[in-house]
């Protein structure tokens, strides 16, 4: 039994190393004084350059703006639709859910390409709006899949009780149903935000002139040889998320409810 525990400990460690080794490399190299793949010495040079690079800061801004906005809109649309879906039955519901699943099954490649074609056909100039529409489109299914199970679990009788006690349906919804859905809504938002933040393929096909997110910027830089300024930025982002999670997790084990 001891042997077994020892073995599983090793296994966990190995997977952990596998997942985090590249991240460690990126962080270490953000402090490299040189540019190449050899560590020449410690320096904060790339951090200084980062705050002077308009291109990277613009890309960071675009990435965050698109991620937050698309996740927010997707959450709102997703929530409204979930309530609508719950009133659907039988065939219409099945068709609706099948349509909703298309972007998830379809692979980002086909989703991105088909959206690019449709924007061109509608005469939409590629820019912020096209990227946003694309991100919202692939975010909504994740939101719906996060909220739907919660909605199914909610207790109908409390809602009905509230109505019987004289609450208007809207009021009853806000006071009774919405709080119960909150963890689902929040996890949907978080999931959508993360997907959007990490997306490359869909942005790549739908972006317009001069609009880069971090992903597309990195993709074009990879070809010319990446500068460690991007590593510096990623390190800062990673550490801030880590700290944020740490603090959210500390006071109450509420993250259980999030995912």
């Amino acid at each position, binding site marked *: 039994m001891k042997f077994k525990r020892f073995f599983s400990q090793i296994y966990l460690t190995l997977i*952990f190393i596998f997942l985090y080794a590249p*991240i460690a490399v990126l962080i270490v190299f953000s402090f490299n004084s040189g540019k190449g793949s050899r560590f020449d010495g410690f320096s904060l040079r790339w951090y200084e350059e980062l705050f002077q690079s308009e291109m990277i800061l613009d890309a960071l801004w675009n990435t965050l703006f698109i991620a937050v906005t698309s996740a927010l809109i997707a959450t709102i*649309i997703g929530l409204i639709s979930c309530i*609508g879906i719950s009133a659907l039955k039988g065939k219409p519901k099945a068709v609706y859910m099948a349509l909703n699943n298309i972007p998830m099954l379809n692979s980002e490649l*086909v989703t991105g390409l088909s959206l690019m074609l449709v924007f061109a056909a509608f005469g939409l100039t590629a820019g912020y709006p096209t990227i946003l*529409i694309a991100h919202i489109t692939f975010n909504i299914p994740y939101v719906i899949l996060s909220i739907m199970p919660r909605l199914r679990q909610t207790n109908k009788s409390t809602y009905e009780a509230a109505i019987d006690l004289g609450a208007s349906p809207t009021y009853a919804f806000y006071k009774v149903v919405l709080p119960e859905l909150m963890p689902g809504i929040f996890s949907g938002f978080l999931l959508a935000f993360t997907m959007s933040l990490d997306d490359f393929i869909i942005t790549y096909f739908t972006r317009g002139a001069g609009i880069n997110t971090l992903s597309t910027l990195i993709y074009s830089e990879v070809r010319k040889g990446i500068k460690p300024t991007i590593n510096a930025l990623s390190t800062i982002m990673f550490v801030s998320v880590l700290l944020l999670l740490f603090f959210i997790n500390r006071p109450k084990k509420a993250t259980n409810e999030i995912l």
Partner: protein
Amino acid sequence: MNKKKWLSTPYLIWMIAFTVIPLLLIGYYGFTTRDGSFTIQNITAIFSPAHSKALLKSLYLSLLCTVVCLLLAYPLALILKNKNVGQGGFVIMIFILPMWMNFLLRTYAWLNLLDDGGIIERIFSLVNIPYQSIIGTDAAIILGMVYNFLPFMILPLFNVLTKMDENVINAASDLGANSFQTFIKIILPLSLPGIVSGITMVFVPSLTTFVISDLLGARKIMLIGNIIEQEFSIADNRHLGSGLSLVLMIFILASMALINRYDKNGEGNAF
């Protein structure tokens, strides 16, 4: 109560505009030539040597990647379950956290690790083991795929395993089943929905990737994703690109249908 139904319409319109019409457009381009006349050549083009080779390679690599992910993730999910970590959110966060560091950058970091003169070579040379860079080979691409998609396998497995009713497992051992029997007869069948959704979430992106092969394949290896992407971005032939996309979609749908036969309840949602 029926008024609620109408709440589903805004998204329905959205889906028609940005999911259904785009797909119809792919269908339209897929069945036309540059001058707009009907053809099925863009579909049959999948049988040309360059395309079928790329599709077979993609299938082979993505299947292998899915199997490796499953073999790595299942024991891991079992260990995590048995550890009774309790804080499910925390465990999940550990596997989602890497996603906050850009996906391209993480993959690019592997290049730093694996390439000639990279970190692994230097570690190997310290202990005098010869090292041949795997960049530009199938191995590098598999590694990149497993690295990127492993969390998508771990999460649904972990989810389904932790939700499993302990009493069923205890009952089995009370009735005399050894741990191997319990696993085969009880745990494995009950975790099937998790396996199914894990497979889906790993197989589809790895079948269609073009970025991982671009970064780690030294552009020597053409996957079907690369072929399609380049039809659009380099050859400026959206007709052929769309035709090949249609074929790819058929492959995905067929494999989904196949896999979903094992998930009759459709409960295998990852999140």
